[in-house]
């Protein structure tokens, strides 16, 4: 092995490029949705059990904590959806270059942040 090769293990000097950040967020949001589906199914079960159950869910969703949880799940869902659509577009051969990937990562972040803020406005 070449002993002269440069070694840099200072982790604080490494930084993730934007496409790597959008990729890891895609994974994290996927896991959040997977857990969140339990809450959503629970709400669906209650809301369809009868008018009383529906009103219960409605009342529950007036609470701050419930709104926060729903906003969190919705944020993960919206981000995962936008990043997923980016993948589907890339499957068609669009934006496969390095500059294309960087631009797509920027667009993904901007579009999902706008949607997440709008979702927050919608919930409150």
């Amino acid at each position, binding site marked *: 092995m070449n002993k002269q090769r440069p070694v840099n293990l200072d982790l604080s000097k490494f930084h993730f490029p934007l496409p790597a950040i959008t990729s890891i967020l895609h994974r994290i949001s996927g896991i959040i949705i997977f857990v969140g589906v339990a809450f959503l199914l629970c709400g669906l079960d209650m*809301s369809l059990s009868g008018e009383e159950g529906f009103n219960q869910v409605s009342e529950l969703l007036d609470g701050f904590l419930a709104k926060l949880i729903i906003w969190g799940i919705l944020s993960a869902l919206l981000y995962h959806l936008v990043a997923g659509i980016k993948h589907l577009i890339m499957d068609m051969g669009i934006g496969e270059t390095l500059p294309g990937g960087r631009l797509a990562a920027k667009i993904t972040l901007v579009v999902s942040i706008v949607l997440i803020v709008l979702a927050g406005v919608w919930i409150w």
Partner: protein
Amino acid sequence: MVNSVTNLGRSGVYDWMVQRVSAYVLALYTLFLLGFMLTTDVNYESWSALFGQTWFRIFSLMTLISLGAHAWVGLWTVTTDYIKATALRFLVQAACGAVMFVYVVWGIKILWGL
């Protein structure tokens, strides 16, 4: 070619296909439901009427099964990337599979009120 016994389709290409096909179903369902909530006055009547329609129950169940397949491929990828200990990885994957199975059966119970 590397084959793993725990991935859904025995091959990466098949998994890729499952991931894309289920993604289209999940995206369509999400957009439809968000559109419904934004354009309709959601109350018990409109909500239960929507879920009373046979086509929407079928669409919902298709989405739930897609979710199971999609989550399996996704979580399989994530667990094989980060959990290197075989026994632990297998346990986590088994737990994820069990949760997905519960989601699908629970969803059938909600949708068809068995």
